[in-house]
């Protein structure tokens, strides 16, 4: 008990005695440290390792914006470790990131079609994938390339078009490509819009014959009429 009291007093008094030292005292020699430095924390625990794996997976698929100083644009070309960029040149834009917090966390990326590819675009993608395979020969790079190749192949099926590409990273990696027939029936809303456009077209077509044979513009801008002052009008 006595020992504990002495220990507690020394712990409490230690900092106070240090703080109470006047500033003009000569500096203590460095061989006698005041407060011992703490030991380095272990970075090899299971949680730390899991955290590193998780960050690695996130980074490899560029869920977060990981474009660093070395991945600057070079002639419109980013560094090739950016999966989003590969999908972008393949005509797909990242639309949503789905993350689920729970007992089994989930993370997924949803890409949507941004544009059709020309023949030259397709060649460019294939060439960039070749380059990617040289720069990223590992398994993750191979997975990325196989996803992009798969999307390219699927988008070339004549009667079907890709609507969405869903990439789940957690809990289990999965790629889901949603395809729909090109001539699929329209939704109610879309067909209403289409009918409205058709009505507008037909009304314009019925108006147009009246304008034929005349050289007048359909619409005269307001600034075409310059106000004339009274003296000018008299001169005219």
């Amino acid at each position, binding site marked *: 008990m006595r020992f504990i009291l002495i220990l507690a007093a020394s712990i409490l008094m230690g900092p106070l005695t240090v703080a109470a030292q006047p500033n003009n005292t000569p500096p203590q020699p460095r061989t006698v440290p005041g407060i011992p430095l703490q030991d380095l924390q272990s970075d090899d625990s299971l949680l730390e390792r899991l955290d590193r794996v998780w960050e690695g997976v996130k980074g490899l698929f560029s869920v977060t914006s990981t474009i660093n100083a070395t991945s600057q644009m070079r*002639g419109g*070309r980013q560094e090739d470790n950016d999966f989003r960029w590969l999908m972008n*040149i393949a005509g797909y834009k990242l639309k949503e990131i789905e993350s689920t917090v729970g007992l089994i966390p989930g993370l997924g990326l949803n890409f949507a079609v941004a544009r*059709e590819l*020309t023949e*030259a*675009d397709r060649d460019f993608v294939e060439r960039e994938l070749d380059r990617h395979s040289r720069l990223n020969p590992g398994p993750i790079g191979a997975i990325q390339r196989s996803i992009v190749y798969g999307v390219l192949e699927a988008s*070339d099926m004549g009667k079907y078009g890709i609507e969405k590409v869903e990439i789940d990273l957690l809990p289990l990696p999965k790629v889901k490509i949603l395809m729909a027939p090109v001539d699929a029936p329209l939704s109610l809303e879309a067909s209403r819009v289409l009918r409205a456009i058709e009505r507008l077209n037909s009304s314009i077509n019925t108006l147009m014959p009246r304008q034929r044979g005349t050289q007048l513009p359909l619409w005269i801008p307001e600034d075409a009429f310059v106000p004339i002052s009274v003296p000018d009008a008299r001169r005219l």
Partner: protein
Amino acid sequence: MKSTTKRGRPMSTESLSRGRVFLALCSAFAMLVCAAQPAATAPRTERDALWILASGSTAHAARELIEGFSATHQVPARPRLDILLTPQAFEAFCSGIGGATPDILITSRRVTPATRDYCRSQGVTEIVEVRIGIGSLVLATKNGDPLNALSSEDVWRAIGAEVVRGEEFVLNRARTWREVSPGLPDSEIRLVTDVAGGSSRSYFEDLVLQAGCRHNPAIMLIFEAGYRRSKCVTMRPDGRIIERRMHDIPGEILRAPPGTIGTVTLAQVRASGGTLAALKLDDVVPSNATIVSLDYLPTFNVILYAKRQHSRASNGVGVVRGIREFSTFAASEQVSGPDGRLSTNAGLVALSPDERVRQRRTVANQSIMSR
């Protein structure tokens, strides 16, 4: 000695004659088989000469291959070569199987899945794909011209019929390169390029102009591929684009005023004896090393497609001899290697050593294209 049966009964004259007839028949059949054996090893062919198709950009390489192949192989007839536009060449190649259809296609475009489906529908199911070299398109000026580097985007903004101002497309009225980018010289914009429909013209459109506009935000918003392509590759109509045949372009560049760029091959620049200078494009100097590493963008693979079905006989009849030998010759080191015939005579850059080995393996195994 009298002939007896197994059970010891004497054989009759009739059974003896039957046995002789049977033996005679057997020997006759054996002779027939032996006589037919040479015919099985050398089946008939529908044609003597190979039939090769090439697109405009690969015609020179195809001629080199045919010349070398004819000189080094005992061919019954010199291979026939037809030069077609790439889509027509693919269509002809995939039109079917048999002596009335071509055997080999040498092109600079990879077969698309749609073309592959068309081939399959026509019965062309076994195609061997072999890459034999890399071609390149180079922008060149007269040696000593202050214009020595451009980006693809600069080229598009100088040559395109329309440019993006804000969010809309307006007519391109830039007169000098400096109006395109402040760091460029104050010389008039001029381009000498291949005639419309020419092979290097399509490369210039696809590999330079489309590359220049591909990352433009206004262009990226256009969904439809055809419309987007037209915005990228339509060139200005105000006389700044001079169209010449491919082999006349170097001479036209030398005669033109400063600021004139031309679309040529790396081989043409090397053959100019230092009068032409290759422009740095997107900060990359065109060279064998940058072309092989894919750092230099305007390059294309030269690919040989061969119908494996034509190189095999069915019921003693085949289409033509020599497809396999021609492919092997094209992929050999003395033809497609760094100092090979295609590099020295046709201006192609050799593939990387690993890739050349892979292509030779494909030919040796006659592996069918799997894509």
